[in-house]
C-alpha cells in the first residue's frame, strides 16, 4: 500500500515572492500542496507549513515584524505540523518568538545574492542565499542544522539554520526550494527537503 501523500501548506503574505518556487519544489516530491492566505486562521491540518521567502509588508519597521501579527502566523499549529521558515520566513519566526534570536543587517550592509557552501548533516552542500537582514544573533537552545562554511553575513557561529525539535520549528536563511530542479543547475536543496520528509 502506498504512503499517503504529505500535505503541505505555504503561507503567502503581502510581499511574499517565493511561494511558487516552494510549491513547485514540494510538488517535485509528490506532496499535496496549497497556498494559505495570511489573513486567514489556519484550521486545516497540514504535515508541513512553510513561511516562504520574500519581503512581507516591505520589511517595514523590520523584516518579519508585521507578518508576525497576521491571523495565519498567530494560529500556527506549533508542535503539531512541522513549521519551516525560509529567509523572510525565518525572520518572521524569530520576530514571533517561535525561534530564538534575531536577524539584523548583514555586516557588509549589502544585499547578498549568491550561492554559498554550507555544512548540513556532516556534508557540504551548496544553496542560494538572497537577503539583506541575515546576520543571526542571540541563538538559544535549538539545534544548528545549517552552518555557513565562510562568513557570509556576520552571523554568530556562522549559523544559517536552526531546528527546535520539541516544537517542530525550523528556520533557515538559504533557499533550498531554489536548488531542486536540474535546469537551475543546483540540486542540493533536495537533501534539505528529504530531511523535512524524514522528521515529519
Amino acid at each position, binding site marked *: 500500500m502506498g504512503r499517503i501523500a504529505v500535505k503541505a501548506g505555504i503561507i503567502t503574505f503581502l510581499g511574499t515572492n517565493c511561494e511558487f518556487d516552494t510549491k513547485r519544489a514540494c510538488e517535485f516530491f509528490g506532496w499535496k500542496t496549497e497556498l494559505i492566505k495570511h489573513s486567514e486562521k489556519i484550521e486545516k491540518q497540514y504535515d508541513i507549513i512553510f513561511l516562504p521567502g520574500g519581503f512581507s509588508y516591505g520589511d517595514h519597521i*523590520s523584516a518579519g515584524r*508585521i507578518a508576525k*501579527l497576521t491571523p495565519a502566523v498567530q494560529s500556527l499549529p506549533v508542535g503539531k505540523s512541522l513549521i519551516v521558515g525560509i529567509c523572510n520566513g525565518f525572520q518572521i519566526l524569530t520576530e514571533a518568538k517561535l525561534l530564538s534570536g*534575531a536577524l*539584523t543587517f*548583514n*555586516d557588509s550592509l549589502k544585499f547578498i545574492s549568491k550561492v554559498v557552501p554550507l555544512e548540513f548533516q556532516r556534508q557540504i552542500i551548496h544553496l542560494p542565499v538572497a537577503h539583506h537582514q541575515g546576520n543571526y544573533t*542571540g541563538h538559544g537552545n535549538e539545534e544548528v542544522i545549517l552552518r555557513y562554511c565562510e562568513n557570509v553575513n*556576520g552571523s554568530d557561529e556562522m549559523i544559517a539554520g536552526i531546528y527546535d525539535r520539541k516544537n517542530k520549528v525550523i528556520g533557515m536563511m538559504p533557499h533550498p526550494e531554489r536548488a531542486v530542479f536540474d535546469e537551475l543547475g543546483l540540486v542540493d536543496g533536495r537533501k534539505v527537503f528529504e530531511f523535512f520528509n524524514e522528521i515529519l
Partner: protein
Amino acid sequence: MKNYKAIVKVKLKPEIKDIKAKALEQAVSHLIEVKNLNCRTGNIYILNFEAETKDCAEKIVKTIADEILANSVIEEYEIQWEE
C-alpha cells in the same frame, strides 16, 4: 477622551553591533575631524492618539512598542510624552 502624543525612540542594545553607525563614523572621517566619535543609530516613532486616562495611554504605547516597534532581543526603547 484626551489627546496624547508619545515619541518612541528605538535603538539597538549596546551589546548589539550597529553596522550602520560604523558606516556613519567612517563617512564622517572623510567630512570633518572629530575626536573619539561614537555613533548609534535608531528610529523615532511619533504616536498621536486618544485615550481615557494617562494609564490607558501608557499601556497602549507600551504594547505597540513591545510588539511592533522594538524587538527586545536586540533593541531597547524609551518613551517621551508631549501633552
